[in-house]
C-alpha cells in the first residue's frame, strides 16, 4: 500500500488546508422556474489543496518518495483526510461498518453531550470483555488519535481500542472526552478503532472519532464516508519544491479523489 506520509510531528498536514467537494446534478429547468433534477453520485470529486512550510529533509524525502511511487498523477494512493474523521457512521453504531461482538447490546437515541439524542448505550451483560470496533483500510504504522465522549452511571472505566493497543480510561456519570493516541509497531494495511467493555459494563458513548494525528481535534460527524480515500491521486504531474535553507523546504500539493476512476 502506498500512502500519504505524516510529518515528523505526527501531524497529517499544516494550515491552511482547503477541501472542495463537488457533486454532479443534471438539471432541466422549465421557463416557469420548475426544475427536474437527476443526481449523479458516481461523478463526485473531492479535492484538497495542501501547503507545507518548513519541511525537514526527511519529511520532504517522504513526500518525494510518494510522488515518485505514484508516478505523478498516474497511480492512486491512500490519503487520510487531515480535516475529517476517519471513521464512517460516527453516530450510527448500528451500521454494518461497526463490528459488535455477539451479545453486546446497543441502544440508539440516547441523549448526547451536545443536546441531541445521537448517543448510544452499550451494554455488556456477559462475563467476558466485549468489543465494538470499526476497521479502516489505512496503514497501522501511522500515528493515530482515537477520541470519544463517554459516561456511565454504573461503570468506572472503558477501554479504547486502537489497533492492537487497548487503553483503559476512567469514566464518570458526566460526559467526558477520552482519547487514546500513539503509534503502533505494525505494518498491517488496516487498523481497527473502537471500545471494549468490561463484563457487566453499561456505557453511553458519543462522537467517536479517529484521526491520523497525535491529538484530537473537534469532533466531526460522518455518514457513509469517513476520511479514508484509498483511491486518491496527485492532480498534477509536477511537484515543485522551494528550499530557503538547510532542511527548510516548502511545497504545495493538490490531491484529488475521483470516484469513477
Amino acid at each position, binding site marked *: 500500500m502506498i500512502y500519504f506520509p505524516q510529518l515528523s510531528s505526527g501531524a497529517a498536514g499544516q*494550515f491552511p488546508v482547503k477541501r472542495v467537494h463537488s457533486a454532479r446534478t443534471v438539471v432541466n429547468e422549465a421557463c416557469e422556474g420548475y426544475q427536474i433534477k437527476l443526481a449523479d453520485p458516481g461523478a463526485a470529486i473531492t479535492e484538497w489543496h495542501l501547503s507545507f512550510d518548513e519541511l525537514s529533509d526527511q519529511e520532504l524525502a517522504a513526500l518525494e518518495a510518494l510522488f515518485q511511487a505514484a508516478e505523478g498523477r498516474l497511480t492512486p494512493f491512500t490519503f487520510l483526510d487531515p480535516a475529517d474523521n476517519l471513521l464512517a457512521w460516527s453516530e450510527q453504531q448500528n451500521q454494518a461498518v461497526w463490528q459488535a461482538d455477539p451479545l453486546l447490546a446497543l441502544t440508539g437515541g440516547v441523549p448526547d453531550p451536545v443536546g441531541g439524542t445521537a448517543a448510544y448505550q452499550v451494554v455488556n451483560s456477559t462475563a467476558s470483555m466485549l468489543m465494538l470496533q470499526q476497521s479502516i483500510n489505512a496503514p497501522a504504522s501511522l500515528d493515530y488519535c482515537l477520541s470519544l465522549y463517554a459516561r456511565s452511571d454504573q461503570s468506572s472505566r472503558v477501554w479504547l481500542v486502537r489497533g492492537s493497543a487497548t487503553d483503559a480510561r476512567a469514566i464518570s456519570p458526566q460526559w467526558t472526552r477520552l482519547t487514546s493516541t500513539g503509534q503502533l509497531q505494525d505494518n498491517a494495511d488496516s487498523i481497527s478503532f473502537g471500545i471494549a467493555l468490561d463484563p457487566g459494563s453499561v456505557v453511553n458513548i458519543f462522537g467517536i472519532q479517529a484521526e491520523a494525528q497525535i491529538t484530537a481535534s473537534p469532533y466531526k460527524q460522518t455518514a457513509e464516508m469517513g476520511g479514508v480515500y484509498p483511491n486518491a491521486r496527485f492532480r498534477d504531474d509536477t511537484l515543485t519544491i522551494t528550499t530557503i535553507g538547510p532542511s527548510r523546504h516548502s511545497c504545495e500539493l493538490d490531491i484529488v479523489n475521483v470516484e469513477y476512476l
Partner: protein
Amino acid sequence: MFPKLKTGAVAQYPAKRTLRFSTDTIRFLDGSEQRFRDNPSVLHQWTIQLDLLDETELAALDQFFVSNQGRFGSFSFTDPWDGTLYSNCSLAGDTFGFQLQGEMRGLTTLIIRENRT
C-alpha cells in the same frame, strides 16, 4: 433543515439576500415592448458567508452538502432576516469548499436557493 452554528445562528455578517423575478421582454420594431412574467412569484436566494468556524461546524455543513448531493436535494430553510420558513430550497451549486486557516478559523460560503413549488 439547514444546520445552525453553535451560537444558534444560521448566517453571519455580511449576509446577502436576493429576490429574483423572471420577466420575458419582447421588443418590437417600433421600440415598444411587451413584457410577461415567466415565474408566478418571486424566488429568494441567500448567500451564507461564514468565517471563524470550528471543525465541528464545518463538518456539519459538509455533511449537509454530501447528504443533499449538491443541488439535487431539497430542504426547508428559515430566512434569517424575517423568520419565514421556505419549505422547498436547494443549494445553488454542486460544489462545497472550505478553508481551514488555523484552529477554529474555518471559512466557507454557501448559496441557498428557493425552488419553485
